[in-house]
């Protein structure tokens, strides 16, 4: 189907179903129950899941295939956001031109930064990209936001004001980013005895784009170009000695992943018309590295899972406070209740970073291949063919179960 082999087509269909049904899947607990705290099916977070999914898919094309670890990808995300908000300010609230421009701007910057950074590899490449990203951050944070030439509006973040020109804006259109008149904020809420499910138009716009980008990434992975990128990862020197110039390939991969990041940035701005400089900070660049490694670098679906995992912790765990804990442990006797709250307290609320860090360590130590490897191991345990295998087949199954060194 669609030029994919059976295995990839299956993966693609799974991703398609998961994203389309996300409003149901992410709201498994009825509203008002004590577990409703863990529901993640509200528009903002669902949008973030797929947008950061796009970001991580793009990053994986560079890092997962070529092995070049860029520590400055957030810069492209930020540039994409600024480009999109400028379209909103000057032209129209329609998201199509905004997203197109954000991809183009990020692509151009990626071309320049990549051209320079890719002269080096390994740690030097990482440091160069980090330097460029921090430079962009500093420019956006203060240099380009002085009162005389205000391109980024500094710490406050670039936003749309009612007195901005918006030349193509008409009164009949929503005063909010929209897709040909369909506001990204319009949400249909389905209520079914206790459960509520939000179907948000902005989410489905992002989801459609992510599915498209996921498909594109499968095709890149399976193309001769993707094979060349893998060759660079396994032994670039050898590739060079065979007379191939590997630099155009790495540059192309860098620009493609920069454009993915720009697209994600444009979508972030389209869902919420504000572009803040913090989006470009090195912590944001580090976050996408974590997402990719946590999910499984070099795998197709891993980065999407990693992105969802991290965003879930950031948004759900950071909101659990002591009051919520007391509700959970209310069934225990008073002394026990306080004890439990004291034990759990450091891991929730402001401690969400700690919980995430611990989980990250567990994943990296026990599942070096990320969440995808975890899934594969579980899959192998239940694989019928393996359980019923005998003789040489059983030996193969045993080897499959033990991780490769």
């Amino acid at each position, binding site marked *: *189907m*669609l*030029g994919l082999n059976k295995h990839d087509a299956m993966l693609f269909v799974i991703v*398609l179903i998961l994203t*389309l049904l996300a409003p149901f899947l992410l709201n498994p607990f009825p509203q008002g129950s004590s577990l409703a705290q863990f*529901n993640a099916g*509200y*528009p*903002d*977070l669902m949008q*973030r899941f797929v947008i950061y999914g796009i970001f991580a898919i793009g990053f994986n094309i560079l890092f997962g295939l070529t092995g070049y670890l860029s520590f400055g990808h957030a810069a492209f995300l930020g540039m994409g956001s600024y480009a999109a908000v400028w379209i909103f300010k000057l032209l129209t609230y329609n998201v199509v031109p905004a997203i197109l421009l954000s991809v183009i701007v990020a692509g151009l910057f990626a071309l320049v930064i990549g051209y320079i950074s890719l002269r080096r590899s390994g740690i030097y490449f990482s440091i160069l990209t980090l330097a460029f990203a921090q430079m962009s951050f*500093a420019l956006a*944070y*203060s240099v380009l*936001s*002085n*009162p005389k030439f205000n391109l980024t*509006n*500094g*710490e*406050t*973040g670039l*936003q749309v004001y*009612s*007195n901005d020109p918006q030349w193509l804006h008409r009164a009949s259109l929503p005063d*909010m980013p929209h*897709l040909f008149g*369909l506001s990204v*904020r*319009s*949400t*249909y*809420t389905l209520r079914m005895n206790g459960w509520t499910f*939000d*179907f*948000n*138009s902005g989410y*489905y*716009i992002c989801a*459609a784009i992510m*599915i498209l980008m996921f498909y594109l990434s499968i*095709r890149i992975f399976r*193309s*001769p170009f993707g094979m060349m990128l893998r060759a660079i990862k396994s032994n670039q020197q050898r590739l060079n000695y065979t007379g191939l110039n590997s630099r155009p390939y790495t540059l192309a991969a860098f620009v493609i992943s920069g454009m993915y990041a720009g697209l994600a940035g444009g979508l972030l701005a389209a869902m*919420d018309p*504000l572009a*803040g400089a*913090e*989006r470009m900070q090195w912590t944001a660049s580090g976050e996408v590295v974590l997402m990719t490694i946590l999910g499984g670098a070099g795998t197709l679906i891993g980065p999407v899972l990693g992105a969802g995992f991290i965003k879930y912790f*950031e*948004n759900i765990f*950071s*909101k659990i*406070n002591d*009051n919520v804990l007391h509700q959970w442990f209310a069934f225990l006797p008073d002394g026990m209740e306080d004890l439990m709250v004291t034990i759990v307290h450091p891991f929730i*609320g*402001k401690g*969400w*970073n700690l919980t995430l860090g611990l989980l990250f360590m567990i994943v990296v130590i026990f599942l070096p291949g990320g969440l995808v490897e975890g899934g594969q191991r579980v899959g192998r345990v239940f694989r019928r063919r393996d359980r019923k295998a005998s003789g040489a087949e059983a030996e193969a199954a045993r080897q499959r179960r033990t991780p490769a060194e």
Partner: protein
Amino acid sequence: MSKNDLTRRGVLKTGAVAGAGLAVPTIFTAGSARAFTNEPTGSNVVLGFNVPQTGPYADEGMDELRAQELAVQHLNGEGDGGCLATFSSKALDGTGILGKKVTFVTGDTQTKSDAARAAAKSMIEKDGAIMINGGSSSGVAVAVQGLCQEAGIIFMAGLTHSNDTTGKDRKKNGFRHFFNAYMSAAALAPVLEKAYGTDRRAYHLTADYTWGWTQQESIAASTEAMGWETVENVLTPLAATDFSSYIAPVLNSGADVLVLNHYGGNMVNSLTQAVQFGLRDKQVNGKNFEIVVPLYSELMAAGAGANVAGVYGSMNYNWQLDNEGSKAFVKSFGEKYGRPPSNSAQTCYAQVLLYADAVARAGSFDPCAVAEALEGFQFDGLGNGPTLYRAEDHQCFKDVLVMKGKEAPANEFDLLEIVDVTPVAQVEYPADHPMFGGAEATLGECNPGA
């Protein structure tokens, strides 16, 4: 070499999937038929407290959260009632808001505009918060205020000192109780004139972002009006921790006053280093060298320790203030947490009560009705003395405190002393003042959302 296996069936299938994908968004255009966003329908009403729990202002955020929790208790009739007894408006009776029990959800702003907006959105979309309060940075306040305007709920700003919050970025759904950079400058100038005279040369070190610039602009304007000369303004990166390279040139510039337009960790470091360089022991132009910190906070003073001794600055509120409202608040805060409240705690406490009171007076949670009830509202008894919520820009006008670092503090909470309470008339300005966006700045239309 990509595979090209186009079959009739394949094309049809792909078309159907793509068509369904495109049709999905258009099905869900119907909005819900509520009158305003998150109208509380049950027996509870949810407030959203969005404070920095991680990052450089986490201490301030924690103190804000303490005050907000206290305010919720008082609204629900628990504890000693705090300022409900001293508040000039008697619409609140300790039975929640309009008979609904007050509950709250919290979020972490991380002192980043993006994260703050995400946290606020989640409280609005997931938890059904009807009002957002808190924050410890102007960038965050402006960003969240914009979000609340779009979403159609009320934003009661926490600690935000930049002129822009109620200046060029003012919004119909947003309200600020805290004072601003202009007021700091207007209150400090006369005190500085009395202490240091009219013939001074000032050297500014300014944090290089929006708040720093408005602060520097305001202080330079007020001090120049009384005869001071601004020798130089040097912008320092916000992330800087070592200011020695910025402080060394000050001595050779011929300046005799150093103005530190810094806040938080910046201010703790720059002040400490300036004092360690011995600036305050120097004689320049036949006068003692002096340091001024326009915006003080208890937590910064605690960070800088003995270095604040003798340094002037301004504050929105201090727990030593001697009026009925202040005493009631300090007592109830102290009994619950065993420490005096900071000025960011006080502004959040006051904002929560002011919001609840406005709802009670309006008889509705509708943000437009609440905004109307707050506009032009005059009140007393929340700690700052008589206060007006100005209708034109949603800025509170009240007395401003000029503070000075104590020479011999008795304990860790006693580092600052009140030098002067500048009357409100002296810090007033017209709503279309050029530092506040001029005539162009408007509140826009009230947005009830949904």
